[in-house]
């Protein structure tokens, strides 16, 4: 009898306490994810992109990336290989230009155009909050779908987001986010028809001024098997950047 009472009591305590241990709402996780990555500062970083395409071999691009979060401007200058050295990209307000060093010309391009022939697009460099672009996927009962899993020994939350706007590349993305610090470890991105198009891993992060930056990204093309892109960031600096950097003249100067 006593044992039965203890069991019932324990069960009651567990039922009452269970909300404390439940996963937080996805919307909250999204806000936290935006918050931990939102760096309201200037940033300059060296990026190495290793692009491995089937039947085309490996191409390695090195570039310098400058960004001003306040005005959402950025500049990319390619420093290697020799054939692409001096080429660059500049975004100021609504204008996005590609600069070709051999012809010394600027050309307007759009946000869904490829950067250096890789899978990266201009839209990927824009500062847009997850909360503004996506909303949690709901089940038939209208509840958010979120599970707790382990990814390489790390406890994560897994949830799926559906695009709220139609100018994002992937209308559906599944996230694996670390439980302790809300950093994204893995994403799987789907096309409009629901086909898995890309798996991305973010195994390494660095902390700068209390915010987090992924210093290694691995993008695996799930549609065209064998294609893979690795992005590695280094030399991160938060030193204030001169606004003159985000001008066509400076990009031309850098490319010489």
């Amino acid at each position: 009898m006593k044992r039965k009472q203890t069991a019932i009591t324990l069960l009651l305590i567990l039922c009452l306490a269970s909300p404390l241990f439940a996963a937080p709402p996805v919307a909250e996780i999204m806000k936290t994810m935006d918050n931990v990555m939102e760096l309201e500062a200037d940033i300059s970083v060296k990026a190495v992109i290793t692009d491995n395409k089937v039947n085309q071999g490996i191409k390695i691009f090195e570039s310098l990336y400058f960004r001003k979060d306040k005005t959402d401007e950025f500049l990319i200058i390619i420093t290697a290989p020799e054939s692409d050295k001096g080429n660059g990209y500049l975004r100021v307000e609504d204008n996005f230009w590609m600069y070709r060093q051999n012809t010394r010309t600027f050309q307007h391009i759009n946000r869904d155009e490829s950067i250096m022939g890789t899978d990266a697009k201009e839209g990927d460099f824009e500062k847009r909050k997850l909360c503004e672009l996506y909303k949690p996927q709901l089940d038939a009962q209208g509840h958010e779908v979120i599970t707790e899993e382990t990814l390489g020994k790390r406890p994560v939350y897994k949830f799926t987001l559906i695009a709220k706007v139609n100018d994002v590349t992937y209308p559906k993305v599944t996230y694996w986010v670390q439980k302790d610090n809300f950093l994204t470890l893995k994403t799987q991105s789907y096309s409009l028809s629901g086909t898995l198009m890309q798996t991305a891993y973010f195994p390494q992060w660095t902390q700068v001024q209390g915010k987090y930056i992924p210093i290694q990204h691995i993008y695996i093309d799930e549609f065209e098997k064998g294609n893979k892109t690795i992005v590695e960031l280094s030399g991160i600096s938060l030193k204030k950047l001169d606004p003159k950097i985000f001008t066509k003249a400076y990009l031309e100067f850098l490319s010489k």
Partner: protein
Amino acid sequence: MKLIVMLSIRNLFRQKRRSLLLGIAVGFGMMILVLANSFSHGISDNLFNRVVVYMTGHLEVSIMEKSRFYNRNIRDKDRMIKTIRDNVKGIKEIVENVSIFTRCIGNGKNDNAALVGVEMNKEMEEYLKGCLVEGTVSDFVRKDIENPVLLYADKAKALNVKRMDVVKVRLLTLTGQQQSARFTVAGIMKTNNLFESMAIFVHLKDLKPLIGYRPWETGTLQVNFERLNDPRYITTQADALFTKLKPRTAFIHGSVSRGKIAKNATVLGFFNTDEAKKIMAQRLRIVQGALPLPKSKGNAMVTESLARSLRLKVGDPFTMKYRNKFEKKEIANTYTVAALFNADEFASKNVVLLQEESFYKTYLEDLPAPAAAPGKDFFVPNGKSGLSPVFSPEWKLLERSATGDEWLKKIHAMNKTRWKGPSLDVGTMYEKASDILKMESALKIISFIAVLILFFIILIGVVNTLRMTIHERTREIGTMRAIGMQMNDVRNCFMMETVFLSFFSCVAGTLAACVLMGVAKLITIDTRSFFSIFLVDKHLYFLPTFSSIFFNIFFILLITAATSYFPARRAARLSAAEALRHFE
């Protein structure tokens, strides 16, 4: 004259060997000229009527949104088709042009391709029957296979697929989203040239939703005419259509509400330009708040009377609702009041002004249905008010361009404006493919110069031969002059001899060219290089025209007549007595 002609013709047969050799030389030159002109004409005819016309039609109407060339969407297809039919004569057909570049995955091989939407009609059926090497037309229309497509043999080989294999494709939709699909190879067609190998035909009704077109939308509209190869007629029709496509002011008749209170209102967009701001400063009186900044989204200006009836002040949200044209669905958008204003143009009407970006975002996505009963609250823009230049139009009409270069400059200029609304262009294939016309002209000039050099050499022979002939026939000239033939007749006799020889040689050269063309056409050239665009069905393509042949003959006769004039004149000036005394 008849005597001179007869003498000239008779004299041709007197020195048969000499005449034959000279005739062969002139005929050879004529043959090269006809071959070269026919080949260059054939190239441009092939490119125009077998490649370009299928890419652009004779006349094409396109609407590019957000100043992006590849963002082409005619939102109200039926209205545009009606406008075209009402204002363009001699139409054979109007075709919806929907196509997109994709990445395709076959059996262990990947390649790029262009998906081209097609509608099955009699012409398409005839074309397919003529070029399908695997599968039949009925396979393409089967409903039991997933997304049937037709590939050219080259593409099938590149993707390592056969009939009934599956090809996966990846593409970007109109809004830049990733899309993927599976297609079943229903048939394989023989490849005629390099351009064809890129295309994969898919049913238009299957392709449009994949890209993001709704049933009432389309990419561009291509108009094909009954009368082909008539640039002037087609350009005239394009110009006529252009004048009828001047845009009106875009507006939405809907209702504006806050809480339970709702009022009918007209929603207009306004330009962000300095010019527009200047006009607004003159004609609008802002009572509260300020003009919304260009980057501010969702901010609106509301007439004071409307604000009063809804108890709105600056910073308050409100909902604007209207019914869309095609789905008859109610569209609701929420905006924030940035300013209250008055304007004489609107009198007491309820008007909401939105930044052009916010306005076009809803206007284009959901074209408004006309207001059921335009009431006294609705402002109807008539294009005559002082504020009209400020309001967003249905589209911006791009100026007509005469050449490919002008067209390119126009598109670059449009791209630079970054305007958020739609830009409409009316173009013909002659402008867009003017480089092909230039290429044909260049080829003609090159072949003409080459043949001129050849003729220069031939005419040296003509002059030399004529001098020898005159020298040999000096006594004959003396005899003719002695019996009363005049100087002019002597001169004309020699000239006509040369001209007749040239004429007969030209005719023979033309016939030889025709025979050579016939023989050359029989040779099969199986190549995948750029040269294949000049071939039709793996054979050389010549297109001789009567006008160019007659021009060439006339030109050759003219220069041989000119060349023979001087020696003939010298012969005519010989004195009869001296000529009779001449001994060789």
